[in-house]
């Protein structure tokens, strides 16, 4: 008997200008055929990421009214349906990390898996920590110009092309399962 556990379906980095800077898509396991395939098309993932900006903005506005936190630690942004959920984290420079979790993305032996259902916000923290570390490493690269990727007062921006960063994202997306503490 197998049971489904969450896995990462998509990792996105959204720039200050609400522009997509990076999107990585990860396959989910099909419970019937056991094949790995992304459960949505890249376009649909783009749409999901773009819709999270709404939630980021709502929270920011809410924080501004209530005098809440400046940034960061948003946790669950929205569940798209009962399978996909988007978690987010905003850095204090306005860069947003979004992690779309497929709640049934992996199949494991139910004996091996803990019978715990659901997912806590805290379980996504290692993901965001790892993403931020990767991003900080990217920023430390003298050839990476953050202003190109989100021009001040402008629109859009370039995407991240650093292979190291892309590899980092892949490592994070593949490596995470609930309960992983360090990526």
């Amino acid at each position, binding site marked *: 008997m197998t049971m489904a556990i969450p896995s990462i379906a998509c990792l996105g980095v959204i720039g200050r*200008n609400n522009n997509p800077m990076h999107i990585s898509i990860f396959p989910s396991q099909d419970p019937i055929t056991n094949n790995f395939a992304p459960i949505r098309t890249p376009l649909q993932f783009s749409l999901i990421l773009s819709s999270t900006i709404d939630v980021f903005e*709502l929270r920011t506005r809410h924080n501004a009214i209530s005098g809440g936190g400046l940034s960061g630690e948003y946790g669950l942004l929205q569940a798209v*349906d*009962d399978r996909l959920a988007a978690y987010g984290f905003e850095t204090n420079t306005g860069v947003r990390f979004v992690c779309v979790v497929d*709640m049934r993305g992996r199949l494991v032996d139910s004996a091996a898996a803990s019978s715990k259902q659901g997912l806590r916000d805290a379980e996504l923290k290692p993901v965001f920590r790892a993403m931020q570390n990767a991003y900080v490493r990217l920023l430390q690269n003298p050839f990476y110009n953050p202003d190109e990727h989100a*021009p001040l007062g402008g*629109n*859009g921006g370039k995407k991240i092309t650093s292979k190291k960063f892309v590899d980092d994202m892949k490592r994070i997306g593949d490596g995470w399962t609930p309960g992983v503490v360090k990526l």
Partner: protein
Amino acid sequence: MDGYPLGSLDHNVPYLLVSGLTTSNSELPLQENLKYERKILLKSKLPAAEGADAKALAKYFQLVDEQGKSWAAVGSKTPYRFRIKSVGRTIPLPPRQARLPERTETLESHHILHSPFSPLSSVSSLYPDGLIDAQWVKKHQELVPSVLLCFYTLTTDPTTTTLRDNELKNDIGELKAILAKSGYKTRLAVALIAEPDSTASSLATGLQDRLENIRRGATLDPKSLFYIPPQDSDSELRGVVDSVLTTLYGSAVEYYRDLARHSRKKRSRGIAPPPTVPPTTGTSRTLSIPDWNLRYDFKSGVFAEFRQEYDAAVRFYEQAYGTLLGQDVLDVIPSWSPRWNEARLLSDVISIRCLRVHFWMGMTSLAVKRWQAHRDNIRDFVDRRGHGTANYGWQAWEARWAMVMADLIERIQIPGLTNPSPSVFLPPDRSMMAERISPWEHLHHRGYWYRIAARHLDFRRRLAHSIPDDDRVPPEDPTVKEKFGYDTYLCPKPYEEHPLRGHGVNHSQLIIDCLIKAQTQFQSRNQTRTAAEISIECAKEMASTGSWQDVLSALRPLWEESSFRSGGWVNIAEDFAWLLRRAAVDEGEGDLVVAIDWELMHKTNSGYTQRPNWHYDLSKSLEETTCSSKPEVRISDDQVEAPIVAGWAFMGKESRAGETCVAQLSLKSEAFSNAAPLTFKSLKIEFDGALKPIVLEHLPSEEKSEGKVSLNALTLEEVFDAESGDLPTMLRGHTDLTLAPGNTLVVEMVIALREAGEVTSSTLQLNYSAESFDLSYTMDLGDLRNPAGWYTKGHNAPRYIRAESHMLHVQPRPPKLEIKYLNSSSQYYVSEPIKLRVQLVNGEDESVSAKLDAHLFGKVVPAFTLKANGEEQKVESAEEEARLTEFPIGDLASSSSLDVILTIDPAEEPTSYDLHLRASYHLDSDAATPITQMLPLQLTVVNAFESNYDLNPRLHPDPWPSLFDCDTISSSPDISEDTPTPFKGLSQSWCLMCHFASFALHDLKIVGMELKVLSNLKNARCEIVKQAETPSNGILVAPKTMHEARFDLVTQKVSLDDRHPVPLELGFVIQWQRQVTDDGDDDDDGAAGPINTTTMYAGNYLVLGSEPRVLASASEIDMGKAMRLLLLDITIENPSNHFLTFGLNVEPSDEFAFSGAKQTTVHLLPLSRKALTYRLLPLVRGDFIRPGILVRDKYFQKTLRIIPTEGMKIDKEGLLIWITPMEGEGEEGKEAVEVEDDDDKSGDSEE
């Protein structure tokens, strides 16, 4: 939530039947099969209550009824909730027991009759094996009241009081009896209202007694009789009624508790009651014990809901649900049976009721969990026992199930998710707080649920479309058993869902409805991107039905807003752009088609993907579109991105008005490589600042550049307008404006600048003209972040020139009035008046009025005059600085000139001046703008001559006065003041040797030389006896040559008694003129300039001292025969008042023979002189001889220096006398004397 039987999901609140407030009688809303059953009728003979109060009450009861229908969660503080129905005096109640079926033999008397709503009665639709249906719920909610509230009028007429009261008593008693007989446990309550025209006083008498009397008479308990006195206002009336209802609520709750108790009692019996008549058709199956348990549990749950006891309700519902989905109920029903769907419906109803209760209790996460659990359970069941989940029926139910949740959220008005609330989802409820919950278990707002429903509807359509054709035809014989294998639970049969002929279910409409609902939700929460996303989905749905107008209206705002594109979500933008284009083509929106085509040609780095087999030719854009008129498309870069990157760069940072500058426009195509080349008709570049727009027009050229970059250079012509005046309205040029994909077109332009100021390129307008449309695209040219580079021929990449290459600073027009300095040199000499000739040349295009300022700086500034136009102004000399301001020049016509002469008075010593000439003028056309031109000049004034001087003594020929001759020594006392002083003192003769050289740069001509005595002599005089001679045509002095001038002078003191030496200051005056003057106005170049007089200080000398001196003088005597005798006179002068004795000694020499005293002593009286003559016969010729003569003062034992006069010289060893050579020999020797003379005497000033 439509589709579920009416009443099955109603919110159950106690049912109150009000009688006697209206006269109308209504039928019982019974099901068809029960219509003909015996009904129970309660009748009362008394008239209905009338009056304003009665009407107000009826109205209020309606209001309470409405509130009772609401699903909104209410707090426990609400005193009562009722569903109230008002009937007349006839009160119908549903049959308590069903009749026996007619054909049943009546012989068997043991038939037990059951309620017509029970599956045991054959009249029921549930008979024989149905579980439970909405009819039962309806029975309790709408047919059988918990409380029957009868209104009567209490009469106030004292005469009929007793009679009426008795009537009342009887009536109530009858009602009560009938009710008791009916078997319903409905509570009876009576409310009395006063007669409409009663007064408070009339009522007051014995009222309490009467009420008590009536109550007793009708055997009512005290809580069931109410008296409603007349009230002043509606609100007071309502207050009274509220209290009545609150009391009744308690008994109603009791009523439902009794029913629930009864139900539980039956459950606990543990037997399945047999039906009245055993079933004879079908499977003959009857309900088993678990089925009955399910019924009882469900009933208990509903009764708990009636009582608003949520915990109990959930408990019973869950129990019923567990039984239903357990092994014994749903599992044993065959899926082909209609009972299967009924059971599924029941499971849905129970689940919905559960969800509702959860929501009421605020268990939002639990509700979602319950929602998911039900879906999973049913899926499991359908997969296992039903038709599987891979058909449209299942998807239809999934969609329905999601919609149920959305509807629940809406109807219950869950706090935190109502519309103005900003939250997207609710935090986990308190029951789940500590648990790990999945993200979806945070209850999201309705929009999300609608979206899920829409997605399932989409799946449903897909599955419906895959129904094989055979199943899409309705069966010809309706009696033939329908095909199984389709899940038709709450959805149409396959031939209705997607019929082969005709229209089936309009899936698209369903989806669109769903999406629009979702979009409203997202929009109201400012989730604009999500709303936009749904709009796209919606539009795709509309496109599938071909309603392009709707697609257009849905997508056009998104396109125009372009938040996806500007944010860089290019794939999203691209996705709907093609869709929009298709819609625009269909709707004939030519401008939109062109705009989209224009944008979609653009391949950004990770942007639009190339559509295979697409022409990418802008000119073909409107081939398929039919437009009413030729579209003129005007778009700009804030609406639509261009497949072109434009750049503008000025080559230099600065320029001047009136000059030209070079600039480049670069257009880089970012179109797909297979796109057709774009040929613009024209383009227009606009500027901020002082530059008119540039218009480039297309001029086809034959040459095709091979490289990626084609560079065209051109000069722009200025286009003038009648109104524009002097300035051009625009600049125009012609070049080839064809841009192939991937190439760069660079146009290099030479622009004439006319105005001063900052110029910034602002916009570029590209005009494209095709047969079917005109496109004009405006884009920004002043992008600060990406300065345009400079293209050079042969290089494909631009070169960075500077950060703000799109800006140019045009400096004001330079002054064109020139100040020319006409003099050839700026070297001037002391004592010379400086005459500067300056010319003002008007280089402006028009006449100007000018003024001239002259500033002269120096240590000492002499006076100067400025002369022009016959006017003259003089400035006095000053220290440091002298200025002449605003010398009027007047009008100067264009390209005319004016000479100005500045004359500076002679300087007395070498110096240098700085001269600033500043012409300030203005154009006649523009008097407000002053223009200034300045000419700085440095003038150096040097000495034209340098000289040195030597004053040599000579022997004065006149005899000295003798002390023994009084005439010569004493001045006559009678000399008056007026007569010139007779000079009686000693005279001395001197010769000033003056060696001078010209330090000028040019030849100078000396026209005169003069020696002047500068000092004011007292008691002495000095006479220049012989000036140096100057030839009549002067001496031409070349630069750097030495010249000599000699002056003889005689000095004499006034008195012999005067012993003091006389200081003598001498000045050497040269009068000279320039050979060539700078004066350009003189026609003859060779004319000499004015004669200048330079006085040079020739030194200060002491003469006529009182020391004795020895003068040697020689003269030759020609003796003939080539013999020359030299007479050497040694003259010793004693100007002192002492008697002096000198010893004279002559040494013999090889060089000459001499006669005279070889050794002698000379005595000199005071003021006397004596000469000793030697005759020398030189033995050498053409050489110096050195007569060794020694003169010694005998007294002081001091050797006196012998002072040479003409033809002699002296060195350290003594006197030297030149012996002239004989004729024919030694000419050089003579010259040598002079040279050596020079050397010796000018030794200290030799330069």
